[in-house]
Structures are given as C-alpha cells and as structure tokens.
C-alpha cells in the first residue's frame, strides 16, 4: 500500500515552488514519513524555517508553521521551544540560510543543545536568488557570483555542527530517499539539538553552471560520493578520497539538554524566593 502523504499536506497548497529535478520535495516526503512514524501531533509540532527555496517547506505541511526571516529560523525556534518545551520543534532550510546569515544562530543552537531537529538541505548554492555561491559551495565551482571559480573554502556542515556542540548529527542525500526518514526519526527522538544534513541538488542554478548535463547525473553523483559510516570503517583514506560519509555521524547522550536545564533554573529560583 502506498504511503498517504496527503494527511500531512495542507489542502490547496500544492503544487510547490520547487523546480523540476530539485531534491527538496524528496526531503519533504522523508520528513512527512518520519512525522508519521513518530505519530507527531500536527497541532503540537512547529516547523520553523528561514528564507530560501528550502525554507518554503513549512508552508506545505499542516502544522504550526513559521517562515521567519533570512537565517533566523534557529533563533525564532529557540523562542518557541523555550516557551513551550512540550512542542516538537523542527527547523528546515538551506545551506546559505543556515550557515551564512544564520550561522551564528546555528552554532549557538548547537551549543545550547536545545531539543530541536534541524534539517539542512545542502544544495551548495543560493537557489532562490539565482545561484550565488554559499559557504557550502565547493572551492573552484561556479556560481553566478564566482564566474571564474569559487575562491572560498567551504564548510563541512556536519563537522561544524559537531564542533559547535550538537549532540546528534547525521547526513543523508536526496538520492538515498529511503534513508532520509530514518535519519529524521532518529534525530527527532534524540533529546538535544540534532542536525540532519541532506545533500541535495539544484539543477537550475548549480548543476547547469557546473557541467552537470542532467538531474540524473546530479543524483548519480550523490549516489557515488556517499559512503555509509559503517562501510567507511573498512575503507582506506585513499578509497575515501572525494567521498562523503552518510548515516549517523555523531551521537552524544550525556550532554544536558537546554530546556531541561532551564527547568532546573526555575526550580532553583523558586527555592531561593
């Protein structure tokens, strides 16, 4: 029996704005399956985003949805979660939104270890504004503002999240569609700030500038570069050259979660009255 996505989609809000071949829809379907697996109550789930193509995702899902300003999803979401810790708070957005203009909020949400899940759709580009390079655009690659090749080094978003203190970090790809919901399920179940980076594709503004002849070629690249963490353990450094690890990259269940810690602050304050 096929999965019924419609029960989570807002009536009348499709078709979405994403271009043919864009992977964001695959990620959205993964998120919906994950929500269904966990039986998340829609009215008790907030989905918060910033600005950009990926940040349009919340508008399609029938929950409490908050499409904020560019880069600010994590900061708005921190307010929602701290005010109502009983809510499920899921963030989503793109690489530029999350790691450039929103980079500060991102690392500090990681540091606080506040119980939210951030799905970053990394398509290596600012798609909505027409294909400018982002902090995730590989060095040497072309964007509308790097016509001679990108001189900037790029972020490894998952490593950034781990370094900043996130306690669950996973990576998947838009090609490995069946893995996405499993990663998101595990991320939401984790008590703490969880980051799920999904390597995605933007055929419209990135692929065509970087010699990808088709969406299939872009998807095949995701298939080729992805190496599950388990498989990587048996591979040499040479074999891992140019590859990207996928799966659950990091998990720490010992670091205190922020809203639980704040509940203790309230207890201490009340005791001090």
């Amino acid at each position, binding site marked *: 029996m096929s999965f019924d996505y419609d029960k989570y989609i807002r009536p009348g809000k499709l078709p979405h704005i994403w271009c043919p071949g864009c992977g964001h829809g695959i990620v959205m379907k993964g998120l919906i399956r994950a929500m269904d697996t966990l039986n998340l109550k829609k009215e008790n789930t907030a989905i918060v985003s910033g600005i950009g193509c990926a940040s349009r995702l919340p508008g399609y899902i029938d929950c409490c949805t908050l499409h904020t300003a560019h880069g600010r999803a994590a900061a708005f979401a921190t*307010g929602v979660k*701290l005010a*109502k810790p009983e809510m499920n708070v899921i963030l989503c957005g793109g690489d530029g939104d999350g790691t450039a203009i929103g980079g500060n*909020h991102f690392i500090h949400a990681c540091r606080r270890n506040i119980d939210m899940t951030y799905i970053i759709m990394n398509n290596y580009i600012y798609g909505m504004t027409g294909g400018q390079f982002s902090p995730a655009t590989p060095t040497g690659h072309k964007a509308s503002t790097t016509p001679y090749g990108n001189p900037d080094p790029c972020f490894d978003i998952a490593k950034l999240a781990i370094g900043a203190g996130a306690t669950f970090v996973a990576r998947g790809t838009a090609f490995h569609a069946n893995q996405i919901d499993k990663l998101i399920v595990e991320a939401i179940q984790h008590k703490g700030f969880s980051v799920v980076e999904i390597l995605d594709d933007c055929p419209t503004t990135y692929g065509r500038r970087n010699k990808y002849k088709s969406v299939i070629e872009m998807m095949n690249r995701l298939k080729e570069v992805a190496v599950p963490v388990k498989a990587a353990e048996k591979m040499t450094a040479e074999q891992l050259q140019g590859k990207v690890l996928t799966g659950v990259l990091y998990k720490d269940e010992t670091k205190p979660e922020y809203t639980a810690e704040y509940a203790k602050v309230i207890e201490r304050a009340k005791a001090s009255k």
Partner: protein
Amino acid sequence: MAKKVAFMQGNEAAAHGALYAGCTFFGGYPITPSTEVAEVMSVELPKVGGKFVQMEDEIGAMAAILGASLAGSKVLTSTSGPGLSLKQELIGYGCIAEIPCVVFNVMRGGPSTGMPTGPSQSDVMCAKWGTHGDHPAICLTPASVQETYDEVIRAFNLSEKYRTPVMVMPDEIVAHMRERIVFPEPGEVEVLDRKTPTVPPEQYKPYDTSFGDVPPLAAFGSGYKFHVTGLNKMQDGFPTTKAEIVQAEEERQVRKVEANVDDIASFEEYMLDDADVVVVAYGSTSRSARYAVNVAREQGIKAGMFRIKTFWPFPDKQIKALASRVKGFVIPEMNLGMCSIELERCAQGKVPVLGIFRVDGEPINPDQIVEKIKEVK
C-alpha cells in the same frame, strides 16, 4: 495596607513593570546602558516560572521573543542604539506578522557605538522609520522611574491590544537615575491580554478581518495550526502578491494604530491654559523644561509645557491646536532636531519652532530653555 515602595533606577523599574504586566519571556543581549533590565529579568522570571534567555546577538534576541510570543508568551527584550539597529529587520517582521512584543530601548549617544554611557534622544525617528517598509509604530517616552514602570505596563497592554511591537524609549538619564517608586497592588492597574480565537481550529485564520482590524491570535501548541510568514500575506496567513490584498493588508496594519491615536497617545499639559510659549519636551528633557517654565512664569512670561509621553503615533491633533493659538514652540531635545521636524510639520508655518539641540552627552539645563523661551516674540 501601605503600598510597597522602593528606590530604584528606571531600568529596574522597567523589568518590574513587565512582570506586573504578565511578561513570561525575556530574550536579550548585553548592551550598555540597558543591561540592568536583562539582569533583573534573569533573577525574577524563573521565580514565576518564566523564561529568560540570553541570545547570541541582538537580532537573535528579537527572533526569540517573536517565537515565544507566537507560542503564547508575553515577551520583552531590552537594548540600546546599536542593538536597536540590529533588531530592526525583525521589528518589521513583528509588524507584518502582527506579533505582540515590547522592545525597551535606552537611548544613548549615536550613531554607531557613539557614547555608550551618555544620554541622547536620537533614536526616536528610528522607532518609526528604522525598519524598512510601511508599518505601524508605537513608541512611549517616559520621563521618570515611576512612569517607566507604568508605561512598560501600558506598552504590554497596547502591544497585546493592537497585536504589534511596541517600543518604550527612555533616554539614558531616565534609565539610570534612581527615584522613589510606588508599586500598584495586583489588579489595581488594568492588564490586557491578546484576543485569542473563539472559532474552532479548522475555521481559524490568523488575519481574519471579520473580527476587525486586530484579528485574534492563537498560540502555537494550543490546538490551532496556522502559518506565519514575513511575506505579504492573506487572511489565512499564506503569502500572496495579489495587489488588492497586499494594499488592503498593509493599510490595515497601519490603520489599526493610526485610527486609534486617541486611545494610544498620551501627553501632559503643564500651564498651557494661557500660554503664549509652549515648550514641547519628552523624556528627561521635560524635567528641565518644567523647571524652565516655572522660572519663565516667575519672570512674567506666559510659558507652558506640552510633554509628549507617546512619541508615536505623534500627537498631531494637540500640537496643531496649540499652533493655532500660541506664539511659538520651543523644543529642547538631545539630538539634532528630530521632534523638531514633527513640530514643524504640525505647526505648518503658523508659528516659529525654536530648537535647543544637544548631542554632547550632557543634559539640557533649564537656563538654556529659559533663554530660548525669551526669544519667542
């Protein structure tokens, strides 16, 4: 029973006023000269089960309070000049998405880092024109510690009633001076809460104007599902670029404040009945102005003061009425003539507007004002 009395500074009074008004969430970032607000909130909020969060930057603090407000909390942030600049994008977000919140901004010297510990009144235009796009503006400018407390409560009430950000802007003198303050009893001062929906969740629209210019706002996590965006939106909260909807919604957002100026505006008239010369003043400057009016009266000059308590929306009606019966206005302010622009606009050339403008971090003293009063012929 005797009322509770204290001796405290304006910033501390602001925090206590917020607590009286039912504030349960504070998001802030350290900045001089407003930090005491955050410090008091960090002590007091958790005692009542509220939440205090120190965010990573000013705009993050603004974002956090907007998120918390959508989750049903009454929210406050405090800042000063540079912080106000940094918050501006999301103050606009609060305006268009119609999210109640109170921004307490202590005016210090500027622009940029300016004089962090020196007083100014140079953010009053920023309160109205700081964020881009057309939007409503409510800004209160208290002149004493007691009034800071009272006006913060009123700011929460206005914010909840009109579903829009409200700013309270004392200058640094008011924020840091210590005065006697008398706390009202619980229930003594009216405390308003936002209208929440009465319709079932499936019928709820966050911008449903069939309920008037200020539609009810549900809280996230209260059983209602809805969408909030910073894009121009329809009544159901979803984005639109349809010209007639965008026009109507923008006009409504401004109208809900502008059409209620009489409810929002507050001012004090001091010795105006027979006044020939009117000193228009706000914040700490009005304290020098009051003294100057008394001195002028002793010297036989019919001077009076119109004290602006609500800077935005500007008290056009009252100033225009004065302009048609007095000989001139004197406006002392700690900036290079911001309120002066508004007075000129309202005076419409009928009477002179004489300014005393200081941006050197020193208060304007009464003597300067008396001298200027004498220049009005």
